[in-house]
């Protein structure tokens, strides 16, 4: 959605984009938003980018029923473990709620995907997906979570599940909770001095002495560089 369109949406007030698409009164708006979880006041934005963010934060796309369904799916995709929280513990539903506004091409995938899921669930069990039992949910999941099992009947569900699985994993592993689960330890000042010895051993690799001789001596990195006339570093 471009900026002009999003301003139009703001002007429409409570009857936002989803009303225009659905042609019926939506029941959205009360669920928690990503900007309620994190502070996005300063992450190096330009003036235009700040305005765009503000527009997106003010917008709604999902209805309450849709975000509820998204949250159920997120936690089926990544339930809590003994050591790590669930997708909704990591605020993945709020992240997806933001992403469908930021990347408008996702909107159709989610709206038609949830509609397909509810339709399939009604046919099979008589109710929307959010209202069926846990066991019934798992039964449907087992039909749409494996692309190799695609049939004409469930292809739309498989496509949608792929999209929401991708966004759930990304939304989870881009949080502190996800980083901790993965064990990621980068993004901090340090001094790189090569691959740890035990890793080299495990991979049966070693640094060649000739190559190492060219590399930085980290005990001297704070001494100002000087060269001789031939470009040999002498400090």
């Amino acid at each position: 959605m471009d900026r002009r369109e999003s301003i139009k949406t703001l002007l429409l007030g409570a009857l936002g984009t989803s009303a225009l698409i659905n042609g019926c009164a939506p029941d959205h708006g009360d669920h928690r938003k990503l900007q309620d979880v994190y502070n996005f006041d300063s992450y190096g934005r330009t003036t235009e980018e700040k305005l765009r963010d503000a527009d997106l934060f003010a917008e709604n796309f999902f209805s309450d029923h849709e975000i509820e369904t998204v949250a159920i799916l997120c936690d089926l995709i990544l339930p809590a473990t003994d050591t790590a929280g669930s997708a909704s513990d990591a605020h993945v539903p709020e992240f997806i709620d933001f992403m469908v506004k930021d990347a408008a091409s996702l909107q159709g995938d989610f709206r038609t995907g949830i509609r397909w899921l509810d339709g399939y669930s009604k046919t099979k069990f008589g109710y929307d997906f959010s209202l069926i039992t846990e066991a019934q949910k798992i039964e449907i999941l087992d039909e749409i979570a494996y692309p190799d099992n695609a049939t004409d009947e469930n292809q739309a569900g498989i496509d949608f599940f792929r999209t929401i699985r991708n966004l759930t994993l990304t939304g989870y592993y881009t949080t502190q909770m996800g980083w901790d689960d993965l064990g990621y330890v980068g993004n901090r000042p340090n001094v790189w001095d090569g691959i740890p010895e035990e890793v080299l051993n495990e991979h049966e690799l070693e640094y060649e002495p000739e190559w190492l001789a060219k590399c930085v001596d980290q005990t001297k990195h704070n001494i100002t560089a000087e060269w001789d006339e031939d470009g040999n570093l002498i400090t």
Partner: protein
Amino acid sequence: MEIIKSRKEYDAVIVGSGAGGGMSAKILAEKGLNVAIIEAGPYFDPAQDKYRTQLRPSWESPRRGSGSTRAFGDFDAAYGGWDIEGEPYTKTEGTDFGWFRSRMLGGRTNHWGRISLRFGPLDFKRKDWDGIGDNWPIGYEDVKPYYDRVDKMIGVFGSKEGIFNEPDGFFLPPPKPRLHELYYIKGARKAGIPVIPSRLSILTKRLNNNRGVCFYCGQCNRACQIYADFSAGTCLIFPAQKSTGRIDLYLNAMAKEVLTDGNGKATAVSYINKDDGSEQEIKAKVIVLGASACSTARILLNSKSATHPDGLGNSSGLIGRYLHDSTGTGRAALVPELMNRKIYNEDGVGGMHIYTPWWLNKEKLDFPRGYHLEIWGGMGMPSYGIGFDTTYLNSYFNETVGGYGDKLRDDVKRFFGSVMGISVRGESVPQFDNYCEIDPEVKDKWGIPVLRFHYKWTDYERLQARHAHETLENIFDAMGAIPMGDKPGADTDYGLAPPGLIIHEVGTTRMGDDPASSVTNRYNQLHDADNVFVVDAGVFVSQADKNPTWTIMALSIRASEYIVDQLQKQNL
């Protein structure tokens, strides 16, 4: 820094604050000239928290670093991209070109991968070597002293290797290779392909007291808050402003044209003040254009007068002609030995620690120009895209694809850091028929006529890309890695990126000794207007397989000192 709006006359007005313009500003100001810089975008200083994206974890961006407004993602330092609202460009049907612009202090130097390679002796004289295209009017020996100065002024790590067409310089020491890079070294050597430490303008060792030493976050594209990587703002303009007090910045100022007097001599640059839409001008004795190859061509072509009816400096009709970009393609591979890795911090510098320079200058091949190989991979920061289709990697091992629950957590952990890739960056052959010109219909939102591009790759580039993909498979084979996706074929031009995608566009105001076949002379001076100089990559006669920035800066020093010399001799 305060924005000066005075209307004083300057010794020099420079359009653009990137590699060429920034370097020229520094040299001219240090020689005592009063300098104005016109920059189309806002101020930027990564040391100030409001501009900083470095070290921000993924969740500080609501889109987790994806690229809704910046082509390389939310945390990339470069504003702008291939598409900028209100600043269109057009293409002739059946041709393709993407034009990346970064409107901000320091321009595209804020994004670039800091790969800093000297052109070698062959790169200035390719026609002598393969009979195709044109030679530069100058050679490596003319530029070498300036490369030496750029090395010492800005800092570049690398190693002395004694390779004829990959000249050594004054290097800082390179960092040790990462794990996937050791696997690459092993595989490439087995495939008979050389590997050497990379050459990046990042301070692995102290260079001076204005700048810090790299703290290995691997995020140079986010711009370094302690200035341990190069960008034109932090390493050229700021220190020169501080030491000389002779550089005024005119920001959010979109250059429109170079104004000339009745004799055809340039007198001023006009610009649109983007804050209020007004048109203003700055008078100067010398006009220096460092707006980028295509922006400079656009400004000159839009500078029409009775004396210069086809645009300033365009008596040859060649402004905009010979536009060329580097070629680009690449492929990713899964390295089974890197699955289930022990996780540690291997961020390193912002970019590769090793690379393969072009190694087949002496071979008889079915294409004329070479390419180098850039290696990527490792346990980078999980950001938008992590987990996307990770489960599909199971198909390489005939294991179940898809699912939900703990299996997905295991997939993410099992494959984290196991995919690496090789990017190919090559030399294209400049063509008269690849060019930009002024679109007779379309104007940007400031009312300035825009560029229209005509660009097609030739078989020289297609056959080069085909060769490159054979090379990549040979290396992956030798590494025991599994190439991902399909090897691109003739139907997709062997995976060749559309022109403009590699962001090395050059050649639009090429230099030469003959005013009939070139726009600028060997000192970057317009043949048709003595007091107008081009210090961006427009002057390149041919773009080697190497990144152009180091050569832009070396030539900018050379041109700027020539300006001072000519002013002293009262020749301008």
